[in-house]
């Protein structure tokens, strides 16, 4: 120890130019406006009922065509909210993505477990990951524009319901199958949004099919930083703020029709839970400008994207999840 210190002093005292520092880099919080106290003062604590549930998950990958050409860049992150960190509750958001084996379609699922349900994170995992898997399977035989979406959503709802009934059985409910579905939903429920993106562009643009239950939202970030919502914005025109949401395993009486849009190079398809959607609002405010700037092009890494998703802004402390896809122009 002493020897190495001496060596260091000798080299520092020599006339040679200063050596490059041995390391560099930093992690810094993104802030939009007043970051609030929670961003720096919350002491994160674990949820002691779910040790294997990660605080933050993220991805940053390029999708290639059959050869070496990159067709699209994908960034994804799901970040536990400050309130859940402070109160020791798991992240209830989840995302999943998967490409069909033929390489044609990218399937993305984004889910937001309903806060009140103790197992809602399991509903979100089932909807986002298992749901994406089921959808990829269905796409082997059915094109997206012919997909029987109500049947598919019913199948996802059944998966979630089965998890709930299994848990009820494990915790001593005598006849879990007699429990009304609404009560199962009190234990676990989730919003979900699915996107099927055709990775083969037509006239340079990729077709996107979107289906959702609840307030998880899809946007296309058009050129010039304009946020284009792909469905009605939450609470628009509502007199009072409403926190009741549609969520699986309960199926809404009328499923909203699938939305079709396109996304082209220079634009991004962005799917978000309300932890991002609420501060984003209509996209015209400070958060909309911030995300439009940093997502004008794909961030360098999944880690950087996750840091941006986790931006600090006073009083916004919900779980945050975003999956974004940037098509890349062919050469």
């Amino acid at each position, binding site marked *: 120890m002493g020897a190495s210190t001496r060596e260091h002093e000798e080299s520092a005292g020599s006339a040679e130019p200063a050596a490059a520092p041995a390391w560099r880099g930093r992690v810094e919080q993104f802030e939009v406006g007043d970051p*609030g*106290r*929670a961003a720096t003062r*919350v002491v994160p604590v674990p949820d002691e009922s779910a040790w294997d549930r990660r605080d933050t998950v993220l991805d940053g990958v390029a999708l290639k065509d059959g050869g070496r050409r990159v067709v699209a860049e994908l960034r994804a992150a799901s970040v536990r909210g400050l*309130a859940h960190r402070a109160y020791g509750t798991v992240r209830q958001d989840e995302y999943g993505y998967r490409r069909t084996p033929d390489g044609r379609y990218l399937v993305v699922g984004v889910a937001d477990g309903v806060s*009140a349900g103790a197992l809602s994170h399991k509903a979100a995992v089932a909807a986002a990951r298992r749901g994406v898997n089921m959808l990829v399977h269905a796409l082997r035989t059915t094109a997206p524009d012919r997909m029987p979406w109500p049947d598919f959503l019913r199948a996802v709802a059944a998966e979630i319901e089965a998890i709930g009934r299994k848990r009820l059985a494990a915790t001593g409910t005598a006849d879990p199958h007699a429990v009304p579905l609404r009560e199962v939903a009190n234990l676990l429920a989730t919003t979900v949004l699915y996107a099927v993106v055709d990775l083969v562009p037509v006239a340079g643009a990729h077709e996107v099919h979107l289906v959702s239950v609840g307030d998880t939202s899809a946007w296309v970030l058009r050129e010039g930083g304009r946020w284009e919502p792909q469905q009605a914005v939450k609470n628009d025109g509502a007199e009072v*703020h409403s926190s009741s949401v549609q969520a699986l395993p309960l199926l809404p009486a009328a499923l909203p029709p699938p939305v079709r849009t396109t996304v082209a190079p220079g634009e991004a398809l962005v799917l978000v839970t309300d932890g991002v959607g609420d501060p984003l*609002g209509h996209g*015209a405010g400070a958060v909309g400008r911030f995300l439009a700037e940093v997502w004008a092009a794909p961030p360098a890494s999944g880690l950087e994207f996750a840091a941006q998703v986790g931006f600090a802004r006073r*009083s916004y402390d919900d779980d945050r999840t975003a999956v974004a896809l940037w098509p890349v122009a062919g050469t």
Partner: protein
Amino acid sequence: MESDKAKLLPFYLVIDVSASMSGSKLEQANQIMPKVVDALADAPILSDKVRFGVIDFGSDAQVRLPLCDLLDDEVTLPALNVRGATSYAAAFRLLRAELESNVKQLKADGFQVHRPAVFFISDGEPTDRDEEWRAAFRDLTENFPIYPNLVPCGVDDANPRTLATLIHPASGPKAMRMYLMEQGQNPADAIAMIAEILISSMLASGQSMAQGNSGLILPAQQDLPSGISAYSSDDFV
């Protein structure tokens, strides 16, 4: 544009400073604000959303602490002093005016405002004419879209029957409760306990908000400090 709205949770303390409140009761009343500050300092999720204001009333009513972020460096806590009679009418009128202008301003500033919570602490009967304070109370709670969740708290000579009529909403899923000092309890200690109830309901409401709910959460009877009891509006007829 309706965009990007942060949520706020306004709390008001409306406190009786009539002559009978002098001495140790006033001392404890003056401890409420610093206790709330300490609680918020340890609860950053909540302190980012709570706004707190204080109105006191004797013969008249005064805004002693305009609705504010209590942890803001520029905030100076006022010292409460006793003055005169017990005008509930003056308190309700000023509270209504404050609610109206504060909420209007916060909405204009782009916030999404939760229904205000009011802890009303008194140690005696109103000295105004009955129909006068009752009319002022109706103006505060009926046909007023910004009506507060009103939690009356009584110590010493406060009349339970009178205070029970101030619980608002009095019924329904979001009914409020009243907190009363038990017989023989030291009234100054009771004020300190009411401060605890105010703080725990603030913390519980913040946590409930984090679970996607809205509304004021009041502590249940078994969680109350001894010496204080909770009542609903139909406990007194």
